[in-house]
């Protein structure tokens, strides 16, 4: 009797789980579905029929072509790569060095320096808009790829260092001591021992950083003026007019712009999951 009851209970629990999970996934996916539907409708259909989750009457794939040409997406996407790749690489290179020092060197202000990095993360970015523009303008590096890349590197430094330092802290200190006894220089230890060990967390961080910098609108807006070097988020923003917004083209453009980060995520997915759960199970 109890056996039957418990198996029924289990079946009920499984059913409840699947229903709830399906609902959650549906809610999660709804905006995406609306985005895809909107990207395939004509503007008249959107205006005449405000129900967003209705499938389009006719699939207008030409919206994607039009968004690509009209917004000049090709150039914007190339520009975004030019900004994103060096920014991610630079931020990771610099912050892994800092993290190495903070994780393994024992000096008096170690904690204070770490707190400084973390504190940097807590400054609301709205507060930085004007100082960052003034400083870049004063140095003459605003309105250039270089200025934006430098800014991204320094702005992401706090989080990257914090993330990598916490990961490296789990590497046993003996991994440092042993090569040191063998006469390895500190830089060799960093490059040959610690970096390979930290690879999963670096890959996970790279994916995160890539998405953030790719999707950045604010700093590109503040630091870039010339159309020739603008990033894809600014290109999308330009599809909104003073009064009239072509929702279908904007949705199509957004989907095109999302391809690169999604591809990067899929390519690094394995590391991403590993990196996030790294250290979750105490071995």
């Amino acid at each position: 009797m109890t056996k039957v009851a418990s198996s029924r209970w289990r079946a009920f629990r499984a059913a409840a789980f699947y229903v709830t999970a399906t609902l959650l996934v549906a809610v999660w996916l709804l905006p995406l579905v609306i985005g895809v539907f909107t990207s395939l409708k004509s503007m008249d259909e959107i205006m005449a029929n405000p129900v967003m989750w209705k499938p389009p009457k006719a699939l207008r794939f030409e919206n994607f072509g039009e968004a690509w040409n009209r917004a000049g997406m090709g150039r914007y996407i190339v520009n975004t790569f030019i900004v994103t790749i060096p920014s991610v690489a630079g931020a990771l290179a610099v912050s892994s060095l800092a993290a190495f020092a903070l994780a393994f060197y024992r000096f008096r202000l170690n904690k204070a320096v770490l707190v400084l990095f973390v504190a940097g993360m807590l400054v609301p970015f709205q507060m930085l808009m004007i100082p960052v523009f003034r400083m870049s303008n004063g140095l003459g590096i605003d309105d250039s790829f270089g200025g934006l890349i430098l800014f991204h590197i320094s702005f992401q430094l706090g989080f990257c260092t914090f993330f990598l330092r916490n990961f490296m802290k789990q590497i046993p200190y003996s991994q440092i001591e042993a090569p040191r006894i063998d006469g390895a220089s500190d830089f060799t230890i960093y490059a040959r021992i610690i970096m390979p060990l930290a690879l999963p967390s670096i890959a996970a961080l790279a994916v995160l950083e890539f998405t953030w910098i790719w999707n950045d609108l604010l700093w590109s807006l503040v630091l870039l003026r010339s159309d020739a070097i603008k990033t894809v988020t600014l290109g999308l923003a330009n599809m909104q007019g003073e009064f009239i917004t072509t929702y279908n083209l904007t949705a199509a453009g957004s989907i095109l712009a999302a391809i690169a980060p999604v591809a990067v995520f899929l390519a690094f997915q394995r590391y991403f999951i590993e990196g996030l759960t790294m250290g979750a199970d105490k071995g």
Partner: protein
Amino acid sequence: MKRVIAIACAVLAATTLFVACGKKGSNELVIQSYMSDEAPKQAFQALVDDFMKKNPGIKVTVNTTAHEQYKTQLMNYLTAKEAPDVLTWFAGFRMQQYAAKGLLEPIDAVWKDADFPAAFKTASSYNGKVYFMPQSWYWWAVYYNKDVFAKLNLKTPNTWDEFLAVCAALKNAGIEPIAIGAKDTWTAGGWFDYMNVAVNGGAFHQDVTAGKVAYTDPRIVKTFDYIADLAKKGYIMKNAASYSWQEAATLMFDGKAGMYLMGQFIKDVAPADKKDSIDWFKFPIVEGNAAYGVDTPFDGYLVPAKAKNKENALKFMAYLGTKEAQELFCKPLGRLAANQNVPVPNADAQRGLDMMKGAATAMQFYDRDAPEEMAAKGMNAIVEIMGAPDKAAEILAALDKERERIYAELK
């Protein structure tokens, strides 16, 4: 991991390279534009191409930034060490506040009095100097659905009482009398401009936008009583604050709402088969006060004082003011040119022009005549009052505190 070092070096090298390459030559003209809508963008490009053909030595670069973001960046454009040479902008206080700070270059040298109405010169000047080259303008009026009016046998109202009667008739027929997409709070700004001028006259309204009158003044309270009255009677559409202006316009195109106080650009978003059923009438007369005001915002160009290629900038400004340049831009867009020698593009525009000429007061619009922050707070307050007409007194008292602070900070 040699690779990491290699990447780091590559980054550094690339960075220096980019920074070094970022600089520009001198026989150029850099224009920063907010015309991100497709049609104006193309019309402006045609203008630039024509200018380059006439001035083969000058290389023009046009950079476009979306309208809303452009507004947040204007201060950066004006104060950058190497400022752009020509900027798109608005007339009135929104321009004059920068002229007062010495951020703009006077353009008297290229201004021709014969080309522009006197009212345009006033709104383009500060302290006796012209800083702004007007290009095109549009009008605000009460747009309505002709089919709905015909079906209910309604006539366009001239007076406030007639207007209320039309509202009542529409409501009885189950149609929202007044559409407003208050998610974009600027839609409410038009109501304040038109209502306040209709109730209190143009001179008083100018004092209000200049910050000289308290929002608790009995005359302003009276203006808001009229608006609150519409809300209390249920003439303003339900859930106005959750519609964007474009979404609310759809209600009127579909005949679910009757009227919409809006700019002439509303016709641009009407679906092709509905364009002809949309028409407009002048804002109704209140209490027999026949001297009316109109919202006729105009757009144009200015030159930052720090512009790098000033000579070219002034050449371009002179070109922008000419009859043919204005016609080249306005004709394809169906807009009215600021240059009065340009022929009116169509009969509808002629009506708009006649309305403007007959007006006792021409306004730029609440958020262009008043400081931006004041207008933002004011428009929020109007939307709040439309939603909660009983709380008007409290909302206005809070608004007046903001007024005292904002105008004090401007000094």
